[in-house]
């Protein structure tokens, strides 16, 4: 059975009330959504809130999923909307700047796992911190377009559809985001 068919089977079973199917469905996507949340919000706490809200949204709207699109695309559309909501509520830009200065969450997140391969964990943590630092300098729209293009491998048409803009606007946002990253990188190099 393919992944998409398996998704559909799990959705059908969950709609009939199977808690096992629901849990399996959540397990399949929770890591992707959580990491999406970490990259977008910049901290694990908000990422967890986002994850829970996304899956609550999925649960509430599961009966509306018709299978016209891939389940993963549908999930990320919900995640995208929730990210925009959270950003609106918490004024993410400010929070991110603050979080970026303190960098508390990643250290906390990986601290519990440091007993296993601590060097590798530290490298991973530093790589993730770099990504977060870069993304934190972007606007939410730019961050989302980078997320959807680089990490979720969506086409510009899909991104445009999700963000309610044209494909050209999505491409421009992507380019602008990369330009901004270049500027940030150059600033960091000058400062360092």
């Amino acid at each position, binding site marked *: 059975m393919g992944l998409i068919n398996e998704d559909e089977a799990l959705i059908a079973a*969950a709609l009939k*009330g199977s*808690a096992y199917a*629901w*849990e399996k469905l*959540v*397990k399949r996507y*929770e*890591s992707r959504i*959580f*990491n999406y949340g*970490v*990259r977008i919000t910049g901290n*694990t706490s908000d990422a*967890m809130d986002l*994850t*829970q809200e996304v*899956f*609550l949204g999925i*649960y509430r709207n599961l009966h509306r999923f018709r299978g016209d699109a891939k389940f993963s695309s549908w999930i990320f559309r919900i995640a995208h909307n929730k990210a925009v909501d959270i950003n609106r509520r918490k004024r993410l830009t400010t929070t991110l700047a603050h979080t970026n200065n303190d960098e508390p969450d990643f250290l906390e*997140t*990986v601290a519990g*796992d440091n007993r296993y391969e601590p060097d590798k964990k530290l490298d*991973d943590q530093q*790589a*993730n911190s*770099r*990504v977060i630092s*870069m993304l934190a300098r972007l606007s939410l729209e730019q961050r989302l377009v*980078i997320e959807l*293009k*680089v*990490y979720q491998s969506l*086409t*510009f*048409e899909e991104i445009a559809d999700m963000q309610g803009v044209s494909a050209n606007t999505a*491409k*421009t946002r*992507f*380019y602008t985001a*990369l330009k901004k*990253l*270049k500027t940030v*990188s150059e600033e960091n190099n000058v400062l360092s």
Partner: protein
Amino acid sequence: MSCPKTQHLLQEYFSDGLTPLAKKEIENHLNSCEQCNDEFKFFLLAHSNMKGWKDQSVPHWDRGLELFKREHRSEKESMGFWGRWQLVPTAISFVMLCVLLLNVSVISGERGFFVSFGANSSNLQLQYQLAEIQEQYLVEMDTLVNQVGEWLDSNNVQVLQVVMERTREATMENLDLIYAYFEQQRLRDLEDMRISYQELVDSDYETIRSLQQLARFVSYQDDAVR
């Protein structure tokens, strides 16, 4: 000095469905344009850095299972007419549990249902069963007696028929014998009578002859006297 093509070319380079020919053209331009090439290299580096993300493990959470179970339970509870039927197995289990705990005995017989609770139920059940067995026994006995009576009657009739048949046959034989005996006796009597008459006749004849002789003698004597 910036190249006017940079944005367009790089947007296209990262866009979907880039044809090999278009890609070749972009690469040709990148080779010839230092500014676009620098921009492109940085973009690749940034892209590569972004791809360096290592997935973090998800903190423990209940995955919405509590909500899912609670809502589906309440959904099941409000499923209407057919939903209520789903409670039937539970209700049956509950009744069975009560039956076991209260030691309930339900006895059904020809006299109807009999329900008893507790430890006495076994004695009452036994009494009830005993009474039923006795009743059945009496009924069976009556039936057997009737059957035996009918069987005996039927046998008696048959025996009587046989006896009467044999008696009739014997009587017939006896009557024949009696008749033969009487006939024989009658013939013998007739013969005896005939002999007796003959003897009587003979005797009479002798008497007559004697009388005749006497008469003749007398007559002769008379004659002689004369």
